[in-house]
């Protein structure tokens, strides 16, 4: 005879089994067409390049060495691969500056949205959501038309006589920066707004009652309370910025490469799939470090406020 406890346990086991069966299709598709192939990239990064692309199944650490070092073809000595280091540093620099720029613009915007009346708040949210869901390529293309030599910025400046020749913005790092800040701005505003919406303005009022200045209130009360949103927004901007492909391809004009263009090159003309794989894993490692920093930081601030 089964006791009531045994029956309950069996039911619980069945429930967990059913829950695994229900989630199986989603997990399977993601494993086959997203997670699993990442492991193959890791394996490929330790193989020898084939003559016409693809790989030879022969272990080699060369791809990883080539991420940062260059082997001299005559005397086999190693030196720093200046081109790769430049692209790594440029990508990290552009991503960090993009994150800071979107934060500087996005924080006040989120604050503005959160301090509107309940009714109009939805409208502002809607206005920030539309660009967010609009095709990234189209938005990049829109930026291209504004900043190119015949675009409206240069046309207006020329007509006003402020400049005598168009300013070359397109196909520079500045163009990539403007483009990335433009396309990723909603990703910064949305999470900050989500934190800001829950802000208790009685705390702000208390700050003013205690003779705090506006800046003190902002720095000591508002900013610490919405910090989780700020960190989430920064991560959401930094990760896609680091791996950005469309924006540097369209606005950088092929010369100002970022990491994704360097990776693409290895799978195209470069015909060095192992190097492309090693570079991809390197990008993943940078992203993982950023995510870990986020998780640790979020955990810490959670303890402090909780």
């Amino acid at each position, binding site marked *: 005879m089964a006791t009531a406890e045994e029956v309950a346990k069996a039911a619980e086991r069945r*429930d*967990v089994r059913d*829950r*695994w069966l*229900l*989630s199986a*299709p*989603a*997990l399977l*598709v*993601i*494993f*086959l*067409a*997203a*997670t699993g*192939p*990442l492991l193959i*990239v890791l394996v490929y990064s330790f193989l020898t390049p084939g003559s016409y692309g693809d790989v030879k199944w022969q272990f080699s650490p060369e791809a990883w060495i080539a991420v940062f070092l260059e082997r001299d073809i005559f005397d086999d000595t190693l030196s720093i691969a200046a081109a790769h280091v430049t692209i790594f540093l440029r990508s990290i620099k552009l991503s960090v500056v993009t994150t800071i720029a979107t934060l500087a*613009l996005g924080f*006040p915007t989120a604050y*503005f*949205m959160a*301090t509107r009346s309940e009714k109009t708040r*939805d409208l502002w949210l*809607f*206005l920030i959501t*539309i*660009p967010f*869901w*609009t*095709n*990234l390529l*189209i938005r990049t*293309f*829109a930026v*291209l*038309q*504004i900043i190119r030599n*015949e*675009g*409206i910025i240069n046309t207006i400046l020329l007509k006003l006589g402020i400049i005598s020749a168009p300013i070359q913005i397109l196909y520079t790092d500045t163009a990539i920066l403007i483009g990335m800040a433009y396309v990723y*701005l909603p990703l910064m505003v949305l999470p900050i707004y989500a934190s800001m919406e829950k802000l208790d*303005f009685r705390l*702000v*009022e208390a700050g*003013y009652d205690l003779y705090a200045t*506006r800046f003190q209130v902002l720095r000591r009360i508002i900013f610490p309370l919405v910090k989780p949103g700020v960190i989430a927004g920064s991560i959401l901007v930094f990760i*896609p910025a*680091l*791996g950005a*492909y469309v924006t540097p391809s*369209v606005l950088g004009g092929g010369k100002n490469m970022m990491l*994704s263009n360097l990776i*693409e090159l290895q799978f195209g003309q470069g015909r060095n*799939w192992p190097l492309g*794989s090693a570079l*991809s894993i390197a*990008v993943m490692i940078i*992203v993982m470090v950023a995510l870990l920093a986020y998780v640790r930081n979020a955990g810490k601030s959670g303890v402090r406020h909780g």
Partner: protein
Amino acid sequence: MAKNFSIKHQPGFTAIAATCFIVLYLPIIVLVIYAFNAASSTSEWGGFSLKWFQSAWQNTQVVDATLRSFQIGSIAAVLSTIFATMAALATTRTAPYPGLTFKYAAINQPLMVPEIVTGVALLIFFSRVKIFTGYSGIGYLVAAHTAFCIPFAYLPIRARLENMDLTLERAAADLYATPWKTFRRITLPLLWPGILAGLMLAFVISLDDVVITEFVKSGGQDTLPTYMLGQIRRGITPEINAISTAFLLLSVAIVTLFFFVSRKRD
């Protein structure tokens, strides 16, 4: 001190916010205006005209790419929404059980990896599968799109489920409804707005994808975004403005619908 001391005021914030909204919309507005430009150069205004829409409409490459985008988008959206709904039912309204955290991590994994890395990984994996099976149709694109759409479809469905308590389902079970009947008559109708929101999100995400598609597609499998990227790299024509404008209209329509569906309370 100012006459009306507002505790919510911060100096300069409104100006920055206004700048942001103008800057966000100005390039898009300019792009749309130039789609109606009669001149063939994109730097001067030659009067109002619909000829670029007409030429895009008659461009078989554009039509093909658009149809392919819709085909992939609708299959991927439906599949990912079904899978995401099942996964959401399996991961909400339950006490923690072994593997629950793993499931969250696995479902959200595509969001954590830069698209370029996923694109490269799929290029390598699918090129092997292509040699092995000899199949090179759009199935690969559908599989890739379904995978990265799942976490997006999962978000609103899970959010909706978490706000639904189990009272009604328990009542149905008490009245001898079978689990399937309970699901059909109680859970599904209540969950429907979440599912619709997930479906629309997945469709938009699939329609917008450039990077993963660019790496996975075989020759002659351009979707609308990859076709546009190729054209933009070659130089800009007002035809791209016209295509972008039509695309924009579609996105705005879907987002508006999404906004109302996901805000609907009942």
